[in-house]
């Protein structure tokens, strides 16, 4: 059974529009996404800026109310649970953010930051148990116990991200939604955090919903990936397979656009014309058709469904 199971999730945000325009406009940030995360696995989520990755990640753990669809966590329907009923469940799913600077209270010491998470869920019997647990967590994420009394600004970006991870780990969650956890880090530090996340997964059987726009990082850390475009999933499957033989024209273009360090692996470039359209008035038919190099007449009118093409692959394209 899946740990997290999402069916046909929609998250729409209202747009402030004139009193004269009758039609109520909405941003279709997430527009019918289904996904499953198995216990202990990593599901990668890639896509360009504004395609709805963060919104999906937040809605998955009910930090944003979904507009439609269903979310099951560990077999339980949490789509419409009240925040009171949700609170005891919250310790099972945590989130870490892109900006390690903004997500830590600058006026709290590391011990207070991590200890707060323990206190909320009553996980430390007394002060000394709490102190010991914090030290343990710090060493788990590769920091020194002596760091406990320092403030966030005394740490580098990578170290702050470690503190954020320790805070998420404190409540022993089953799932962590990682929203671009390495995007803001120095290149030479990214690998440390990626390795740390993998080690923790191996040791504790954690599941990750790993959001990133860097395809190489996602391919490296995930077993399966989903590619998003304008609020929809256009392709999904084993990470290695999707990256080796992408089926959807968008995935193909996206992969070919990633510059390779090794000159030997010259990829033939598919350069897309135009810009990512707005999710307020998404194009009719296939959302990708205005930029698609192989689009045909039916792409303009008919929305392609996300079909299973075997081998645990799914693609939403008329031509596949």
């Amino acid at each position, binding site marked *: 059974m899946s740990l997290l199971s999402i069916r046909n999730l929609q998250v729409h945000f209202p747009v402030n529009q004139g009193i004269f325009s009758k039609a109520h406009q909405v941003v279709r940030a997430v527009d019918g996404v289904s996904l499953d995360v198995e216990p202990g696995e990593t599901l990668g989520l890639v896509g360009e800026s504004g395609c709805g990755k963060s919104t999906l990640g937040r809605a998955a753990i009910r930090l944003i109310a979904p507009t439609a669809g269903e979310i099951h966590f560990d077999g339980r329907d949490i789509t419409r649970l009240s925040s009171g009923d949700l609170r005891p469940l919250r310790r099972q799913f945590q989130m870490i953010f892109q900006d390690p600077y903004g997500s830590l209270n600058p006026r709290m010491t590391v011990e207070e930051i991590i200890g707060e998470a323990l206190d909320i869920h009553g996980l430390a019997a007394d002060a000394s148990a709490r102190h010991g647990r914090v030290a343990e967590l710090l060493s788990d994420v590769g920091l020194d116990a002596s760091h406990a009394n320092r403030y966030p600004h005394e740490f*580098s970006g990578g170290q702050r991200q470690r503190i954020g991870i320790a805070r998420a780990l404190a409540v022993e969650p089953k799932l962590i939604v990682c929203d671009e956890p390495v995007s803001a880090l*120095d*290149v030479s530090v990214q690998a440390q955090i990626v390795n740390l996340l993998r080690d923790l997964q191996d040791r504790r059987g954690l599941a990750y919903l790993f959001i990133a*726009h860097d395809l190489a990082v996602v391919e*490296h850390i995930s077993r399966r990936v989903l590619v998003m475009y304008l609020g929809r999933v256009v392709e999904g499957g084993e990470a290695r397979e999707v990256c080796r033989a992408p089926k959807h024209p968008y995935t193909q273009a996206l992969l070919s656009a990633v510059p*390779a360090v090794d000159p030997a692996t010259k990829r033939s*470039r598919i*350069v897309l014309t135009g*810009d*990512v359209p707005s999710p307020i008035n998404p194009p009719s038919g296939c959302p990708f058709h205005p930029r698609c190099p192989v689009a045909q007449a039916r792409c303009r009118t008919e929305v392609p469904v996300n079909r299973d093409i075997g081998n645990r692959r799914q693609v939403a394209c008329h031509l596949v």
Partner: protein
Amino acid sequence: MSTDTTPLLAIRDLRLDFVNGDRPLRALDGVSLTVHAGETVCLVGESGSGKSVTALSITRLLPSPPARVVGGSILLQGRDVLQMAPRELRSVRGGIVSYVFQDPSASLNPVIRIGKQILETLELHRPDAANDAEVVQLLKLVGIPAPESRARDYAHQLSGGMQQRVMIAMALASRPKLLVADEPTTALDVTIQAQILDLLRDLKQRTGMAILLITHNLGLVSEIADRVAVMYAGQIVEEAPARELLARPLHPYTRALMDSVPELGRDVTRLKAIAGNVPQLGAWPTGCRFHPRCPKAIAACAQHNPELSLVEPAGSSRLVRCPYWNS
């Protein structure tokens, strides 16, 4: 004055401090960099290593104070930028050296139409061509659809990729000899980044200008660069033709960096991370700046900061700041 052998840009041993209160913080420590006419040079390095500071120094664009050049020289077509009078400096800025910056939405004036901003550059450097036709021509050159109407737009009406195209059009307006592009695609999506890269490559071919591309993405190097310089903590640690450097990085930092970045399709179970953190300004280690994180470091590395010196591995000649590159 400039002959064929005079490089377009020659930075020699540039040292630059930021004076904060009474304590000067060294930001560039002996940077040397040469760009020849028509060449594409990449300056690679992590956040805070001094790439932007180097780029802005070329035409003295850093505010002073706090910036203060404490040594070295910057020769542009043989003329010393550090000695130039303000008027001469202004004719160089945009005239010989043009810039494209990282954040295109912030780099365009929000209350002036983009056509007008391009026109302003033309008036400054090519007054005879300062007309609407030339503006449209430039917008067309960088691939903006419907340039006539787009010229009347304001920055916020364009997408990020289009804004960056406008910035490039503006940079090209004066027909510069050197285009300095400081992370021009970092704020953009991958598919848009590919468009901009193609555009730069194409423009370079058509105009023959030199490009100094600043990036932290080694992938871009293999896409576009003729030559690469790798920066770490205010110094160039390695410089080489792009192909050679990517095929055989010599400095331990370059090597570690290349190993630590995941590459598409490369099947590794575990990334080779570089231990420790990037040192902060004012907290650079003594000896070799990289020694606390270097897998090859020996006791001597903590004592002496090695020079950037010419080494000769297998028939080529390369510049490396590490005496133990071969061990």
